[in-house]
């Protein structure tokens, strides 16, 4: 154990040195590890692993470091409409080869395979008795996407530490280098034998986030939190792998597949509220989030958890979880374009920007295992149901245009304190 602690302290000291802050000898550490398996039947499968550590560096300094690795594979909807009585053939994003979709099936691009590594580190530093400064850095990479970021937060306690006000800022720079290049907006998907039209270079975007938050102790057993966030993304936000079908207005059969086009700027406003209350033994947690953006998306998210204590605290517990989500469509969302009509400025058939309702049902179990060690298991079932358009022309009225998507994810976690 001593060797492990020493090795960890050296690693963290190295990370802190990278941030320009000298680490003092170790005092206390916590290491969290987790593995999560995610499965959408017939679509995406993912395995995600996390190791995160916090370490008390002395003099009130708290350091943290986190590494995430995930591997993803499977198929995802490419945006095209199904055809009820014919096989459809699509060109793979690389431009090399094709994939075929059976009659009536949702067109899924099955070439999706990726691995992502993400590393983040940060420090919390007290500035006097009531104020804390926190800053961190972040980087992640996958074969077609890189993200680098930095964030800082200032928080201050008021009213005998019953109220905390915090202001946090973050900046991220993302770069996408899509397989096969970036398609020209509304360019037609061509067969592999033809030379595709592509934009020059990689796509990039800058994302600025700001959060103003307040947490308030109400009474001996109740605490609430309210956050207001604004997020501005500026740059390439089109999904280079998605198309929009142009369909005949009478038959509903596709006449072309055009690469989608989204606006380059997106500003989101989010209000989030959380209430936690300790009952005689159990803890209930309720939260709500409202989001609105200038793409036209609005959404509501309500989340409820009930921690049923089966032993002392921190003891054994069971925690059912229920989440409801509803979003209205982006202005640029359209399940198809009609042949013969003028192209809009922006269009996407990505159902994730369309109207939908989603539910999550979950259960988590946690218990201590020996001194200063805890283990958790959880299982969640997620189901999203897109709204199907009522005015589908021709054959589109006979196919399951936007079927519900279900996912199951399971996580095991282990926490150790030194």
């Amino acid at each position, binding site marked *: 154990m001593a060797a492990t602690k020493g090795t960890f302290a050296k690693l963290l000291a190295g990370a802190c040195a990278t941030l320009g802050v000298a680490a003092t000898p170790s005092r206390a550490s916590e290491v969290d590890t987790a593995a999560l398996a995610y499965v959408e039947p017939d679509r995406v499968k993912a395995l995600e692993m996390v190791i995160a550590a916090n370490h008390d560096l002395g003099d009130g300094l708290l350091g943290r470091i986190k590494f995430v690795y995930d591997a993803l594979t499977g198929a995802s909807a490419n945006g095209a409409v199904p055809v009820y009585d014919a096989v459809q053939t699509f060109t793979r994003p690389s431009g090399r080869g094709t994939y075929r979709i059976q009659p009536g099936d949702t067109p899924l691009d099955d070439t999706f395979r990726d691995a992502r590594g993400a590393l983040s580190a940060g420090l919390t530093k007290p500035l006097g008795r009531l104020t804390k400064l926190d800053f961190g850095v*972040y980087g992640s990479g996958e074969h077609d996407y890189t993200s680098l970021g930095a964030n800082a937060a200032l928080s201050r306690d008021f009213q005998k530490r019953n109220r905390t006000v915090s202001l946090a800022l973050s900046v991220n720079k993302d770069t996408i280098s899509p397989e096969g290049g970036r398609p020209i907006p509304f360019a037609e998907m061509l067969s592999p034998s033809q030379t595709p039209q592509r934009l020059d270079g990689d796509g990039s975007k800058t994302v600025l*986030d700001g959060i103003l938050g307040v947490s308030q102790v109400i009474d001996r057993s109740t605490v609430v939190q309210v956050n*207001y966030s604004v*997020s501005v993304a500026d740059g390439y936000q089109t999904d280079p792998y998605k198309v929009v079908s142009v369909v005949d207005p009478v038959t509903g059969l596709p006449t072309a597949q055009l690469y989608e086009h989204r606006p380059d700027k997106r500003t989101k*406003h989010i209000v989030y509220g959380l209430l936690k209350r300790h009952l005689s033994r159990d803890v209930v947690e309720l939260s709500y989030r409202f989001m609105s953006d200038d*793409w036209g998306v609005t959404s509501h998210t309500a989340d409820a958890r009930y921690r049923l204590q089966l032993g002392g605290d921190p003891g054994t517990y069971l925690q059912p979880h229920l989440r409801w989500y509803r979003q209205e469509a982006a202005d640029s969302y359209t399940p198809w374009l009609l042949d013969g009509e003028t192209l809009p400025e922006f269009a996407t058939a990505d159902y994730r920007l369309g109207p939908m309702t989603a539910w999550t049902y979950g259960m988590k179990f946690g218990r201590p295992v020996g001194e200063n060690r805890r283990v958790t298991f959880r299982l969640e079932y997620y189901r999203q149901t897109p709204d199907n358009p009522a005015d589908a022309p021709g054959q589109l009225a006979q196919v399951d245009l936007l079927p519900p998507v279900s996912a199951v994810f399971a996580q095991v976690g282990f926490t150790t304190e030194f």
Partner: protein
Amino acid sequence: MTRRLLLGAALLAVIALTGCASMGVEPWERDLLARPAMALNDDPIALALDEHIYFSKEASTGGLGFGGGGCGCN
């Protein structure tokens, strides 16, 4: 909509700095609040994993903190 949200944020800031003066507890009344289960984010790893999943399946993200970047958006 944006104007209303900004107004809400300003109101939130005013309340944060001036309001609710009668709420709260004395330091010796924090026994329940100090329990790990009462932390505002009592399972940050699970929260981050969930945020990444919902980010890849829905049009909304954020509100709780900074989730980190990356795509994984298929």
